[in-house]
């Protein structure tokens, strides 16, 4: 054992985090928690980008992770503003109660 880490372990970790994010998105009913699950998914994808950047010895993967981060920040700002508006108008964060577009 040289103390080095196999590259695939990083990819496995990324897969586990991605699946947990999907689980949170499916099982949770609170709209903020679902939003945080999306952030978890994006982080898992970022880890994959950085891992492949290491394997290819290229900096391009880091830039993709950077762009994902920027888009996630913009998404969080707009999404949380929408959540604020929804809560002011409806008084709930439970997605089961937010079904006015169904009819």
């Amino acid at each position, binding site marked *: 054992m*040289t*103390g*080095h*880490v*196999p*590259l*695939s*372990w*990083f*990819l*496995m*970790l990324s*897969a*586990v*985090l991605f*699946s947990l994010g*999907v689980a*949170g998105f*499916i*099982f*949770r*009913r609170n709209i*903020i*928690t679902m*939003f*945080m*699950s999306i952030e*978890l998914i994006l*982080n898992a994808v*970022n*880890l994959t980008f*950085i*891992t492949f*950047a*290491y*394997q290819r010895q290229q*900096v*391009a993967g*880091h*830039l993709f*992770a*950077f*762009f994902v*981060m*920027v*888009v996630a*920040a*913009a*998404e*969080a*700002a*707009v999404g*949380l*503003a929408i959540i*604020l508006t929804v*809560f*002011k108008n409806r008084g*709930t*964060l*439970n997605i089961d109660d937010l079904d006015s577009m169904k009819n």
Partner: protein
Amino acid sequence: MDLIVFLVFAGVAVVAAINVVVQRHPISSAVSLIAVMGSLAVLYLLLGAEFIAAAQVIVYAGAVMVLFVFVIMLLNAGGETKAGRSFVASRLGVPVLVALLALLAFFTACIYPHDTQVHFGGFRGGTAEAVGRALFTTYLLPFEITSILILIAIVGAIVLARKELE
């Protein structure tokens, strides 16, 4: 040494990610998510991504999660009530997720039968200088488009928050 660092922080990331999904109250999920992001920043450092690790801590664990915690505290909606879940989600959810995970692990094992061994310092191209050089030469157009995206996000957030004030 690298192996110990990986195992410790990967363990923290997985446990905190499970906590994000399991916790009833959003604020507990948010704090757990900060732990996930912090441990991921350490793993980025291990992979030689210095700039992205710093950006992870500043942008994600700093700015984005502060925004989340701020909104949770502002709304103060309390814990999630255990609602009746749909039949499909309760019966098929866990098997489908396990299948997804197994599929991802299978493809990873197929594509990488002979692993690259990761060690600290194995990739030195992730400095702020290297990232900045690539960002302002090869990827200049995406970078400029990103600035327009952020401008749109600012305008959208202000419009939505203003509507809420009226």
